[in-house]
């Protein structure tokens, strides 16, 4: 697991990774756009260009938007493994693996509810998702 690639963190995204260390998935949101969240983080809104952005904590609930099961190598991963896109309840998409779930299409149904978890990687926590416990998100 520790062989997995560490993200290169830049000044604008420091808060995101600091939040993850505390078990929070933090998003930027645009004030003039009615606190509309966006991803990945940046200190301005990609919809209207405003610099009036805040940091909000995502609920951690989402749904499986799309995925592939990769049979190709990646450092620290044992193929096959699932590469997925989660649609967060807040309306933004992000990449994830599907933790605690076999890389098998029979266990992966589009729009199934997912919940936030974290993977420890070195001194970082990587936001990850797993099938939601108890069904509906």
């Amino acid at each position: 697991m520790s062989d997995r690639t560490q993200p290169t963190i830049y000044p604008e995204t420091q808060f995101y990774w600091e939040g993850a260390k505390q078990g929070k998935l933090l998003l930027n949101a645009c004030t003039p756009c009615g606190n509309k969240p966006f991803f990945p983080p940046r200190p301005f809104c990609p919809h209207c260009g405003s610099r009036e952005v805040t940091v909000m904590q995502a609920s951690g609930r989402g749904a499986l938007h799309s995925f592939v099961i990769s049979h190709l190598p990646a450092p620290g991963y044992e193929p096959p493994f699932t590469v997925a896109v989660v649609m967060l309840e807040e309306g933004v998409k992000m990449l994830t693996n599907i933790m605690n779930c076999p890389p098998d299409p029979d266990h992966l149904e589009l729009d199934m509810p997912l919940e936030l978890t974290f993977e420890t990687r070195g001194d970082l926590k990587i936001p990850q998702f797993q099938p939601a416990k108890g069904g509906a998100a």
Partner: protein
Amino acid sequence: MSKAAIAIVGAAETTRMGKVPELSQTGLHADAALNAMAECGLTPADIDGIATAGHDAAEIAQYLGITPTWLDSTSVGGCSFILHVRHAAAAIATGLCKTVLITHGESGRSNNRAHRPLFPSMQQQEFESIYGPLFPPARFTLPVMRKMKDDGLTIEQLAMVAVVQREWAAFHPRATSHDPLTLDDVLSSKMIAWPFTKLMCCLVSDGGGALILTSAERAKDFPTKPVYLRGMGGESCEGPMISQMEDFTTSKAFRVSGKAAFESAGILHSDVDHLMLYDAFAHLPVYGLEDLGFVGKGEGGAFIAEGRTRPGAELPLNTNGGGLSYMHSGMYGMFALQEGVRQMRGTSPAQVKDAKLSVVHGVGGMFSGAATAVLTSEDQW
């Protein structure tokens, strides 16, 4: 009546393709460039504009002994050469240069090169690569499950893209793969990134190509049959983070680029005799057909699976066999252009009878960039 303003007067691929371990990537650029200059009777001294992607245009200029007054190193993935055609047309039309050489060379298989062609994206590395989709087959394919659920695209339809394109490749002696494929061959080939099997993924090749453009007026003095640009083409981008595509069932970059190209050319879909849609993976012709408006949304997969793009059918598509069967160096857009030019010259081994209008559309990166060119054999319309 409109008259053509810009023409392609030179077009050639590298002498050999597939495995070319004896040449460096720079050498592949040069081999293609020398072939293109030779066929239209030019030397490096005649070239005053140069464009390339995935490689420094200045290095190619120096290597070939060219002193340009116009350079373009726009590098947004494999469609970059289609953007270069558009940019070169604008440069010639505004007098920035007279004769433009666009080169592509890529040692995709032998790896005789200093770096990979695509710029790394900082945000892609920070928020996507860390989850393991390091190679295109596990990243470019990510939207497809969504499209299958929302638009009814099936795995069999995707597999048929490879089957039909192999029928076209069979005409081409230079294609890497000629042997007929069955649906079962494609579905049962090695799993690469479920649901994509190996035969739904492009080849990995060495090779290159080059184009020479000048004004339509000068084109008549060349020994080659001119291929004219109809309108100015189109280009756009959505960006390198595939997770941030606005809608996984349609490419915004394709739609914007295609619309611009069709409007600029003043053509209808029914005017198009021949179509090239860059196919790094089997889903791209499906998105291309829909996003350029040849079929309605959700109809692309069935259109191909029903055989409507195969030899002899209504819309000849990827008539060289595409990246799936012809070759795929990594930045395949140059090869889509080369086949478009051959078709308009009437010299393709898979020649579409009486074809007068070809649309060449490419993707850059993984649904990141897009560009569209409209080629024609006619000097006025």
